[in-house]
């Protein structure tokens, strides 16, 4: 943490929390077109494999490694009736906590948070647990997402089958 007074620091964290809660609400409402508007055109959305949470998409296999084009395609897919795994959609509950602003000294601020994402569909429930890493750009008093990365704490995907929803 560089050159940010404690009160400003708390204010910034509060702003970030509100942003992340709003993002979670869009996902839970399946308002994916609106959710996509939170991302910059050069943004990334990454989910590493369970056994390589530090995975680098340049040379490690990832579960998800979306640039803006593929993220847009993901949203198009999930909005369609032909994403069979998510038609009809699951009910989800994205829970975000332990929010911490790691570095606010630059235009892009680094944030970590814990998450649980609950997914319910056809009588079955599954739960994703892990840590978010965000890079957020300040924008008109708010933020835009430059990077969203969801590192899973589960040692594998056996309890959840897949990552067809957005974490």
């Amino acid at each position, binding site marked *: 943490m560089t050159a940010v007074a404690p009160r400003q620091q708390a204010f910034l964290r509060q702003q970030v929390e509100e942003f992340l809660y709003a993002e979670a609400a869009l996902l839970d409402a399946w308002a994916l077109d609106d959710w996509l508007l939170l991302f910059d055109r050069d943004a990334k959305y990454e989910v590493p494999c369970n056994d390589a949470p530090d995975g680098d998409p340049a040379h490690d296999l990832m*579960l998800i490694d979306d640039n803006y084009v593929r993220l847009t395609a993901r949203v198009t897919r999930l909005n*369609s009736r032909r994403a069979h795994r998510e038609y009809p959609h699951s009910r989800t509950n994205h829970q975000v906590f332990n929010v911490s602003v790691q570095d606010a000294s630059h235009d892009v601020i680094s944030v970590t948070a814990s998450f649980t994402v609950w997914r319910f569909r056809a009588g079955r429930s599954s739960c994703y647990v892990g840590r978010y890493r965000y890079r957020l750009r300040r924008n008109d008093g708010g933020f835009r997402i430059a990077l969203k990365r969801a590192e899973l704490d589960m040692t594998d995907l*056996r309890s959840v089958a897949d990552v067809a929803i957005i974490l």
Partner: protein
Amino acid sequence: MSTNVQARRPEEAEAAAQLPIVDDDPVTQRFRVHRSAMTSLEVHRAEVERIFAKSWLYVGHESEIPEPGDFVRRPVGGRPVFMVRGVKTGNVNVFHNTCTHRGALVCRQESGNSKVFQCFYHAWTFDSEGRLKGVPDRDAYAGGVNFDELGLKRVARVESYRGFVFASFDPDIDDLPSYLAGAKDYIDLVVDGCGGSVEIVRGTNQYSFAANWKLLVENSFDGYHAESTHDTYFKYLVSIGTDLRGGVSGRAIDLGNGHAVIEYSSPWGRPVAKWEPLFGADARTEIDRLRADLVARHGEQRAHAMAEVNRNLLIYPNLIINDIMAVTVRTLYPPAPDTVDVTAWALAPNNELASLRHRRLDSFLTFLGPGGFATPDDVEALESCQQGFASGGVEWNDISRGMGRVPMANDEEQMRVFWRRWQHQMGTAADRAGVQ
């Protein structure tokens, strides 16, 4: 469940079923599989004994343990084992992961490097060749214990082919090359196509879902489902500039011993070695070079098969090697009749150009991965089938597509090859008179 498993005598194991679960009638060109194959607990138990305990099962790839002392642990055929490169011999050892003293796991990390494996319970210590090296307070034992015989237990048979390490719990099984039969040539195409030297990429897909494992065997080389199930994936490919108009055409081949492959033309690019605009101009030079190298080494015909032809290969019973827009090595295991554990890795050439590696991994995770645009829909399809079986009323699955013609890649001859071998190996345990 009405089956009386206890009533079967061992000598009946090789006998043919009177009412086989697999109804294979070449005269009427009918091929059906009774759905009890996917739902019966008796069938499941018999599969564990007659198939998973009596086949060569994929353990891992030698590239995962390049250095002496490197190890990985994982279940094989549902049993915890670990694979370690011996410090003294350099050999690939595969051990039952159980202390010879009281049973605890001796290898409790997923992977790493170690000269010794110590059971934490009573601190018995084994070296990377399995020898028992340390027993605390050894003098307390009388003469009845022979410590020389208490080394780690090796899995009965371990052999490798082109870096793919297989193990079998059956000491009397055929040697691996005989077992692999015609599948050897297809492993050669994958490995030689990659320049002869391949590696498993870091990052593993480990997922499970509520369907019988044999449905995923079928699905892993089912050309017929692609258009309907994976519409969103193909739309995505088109949206990023892949030209799918060439379509897929090809054939299914029986490779012997239950192994089978479909091979078909590739509308999409392949990092070895079919360029498409999506790969970028820089990669074109490298792909041209890779292809020319394949021609020089293997001749035009074989180079074509390596570079431009896709292959979805089943090594019976539960190893899939799909060499498509990326290469996946995937194992399946059923912890229960209605559950399958999938473990999948990406295989790639050593020393691959960074941009091609990145594209390969992109293609892998988008099509083959559980976070991609296709695999979740396969999961949905297979779970949906399993749920449909529970409805009853319909007893049979039809697998007869293409029986009246030379089998095409989107026919089902490859599935019939699997099922015929399955029925043969199950014998009377796959008799629907005895199964519900």
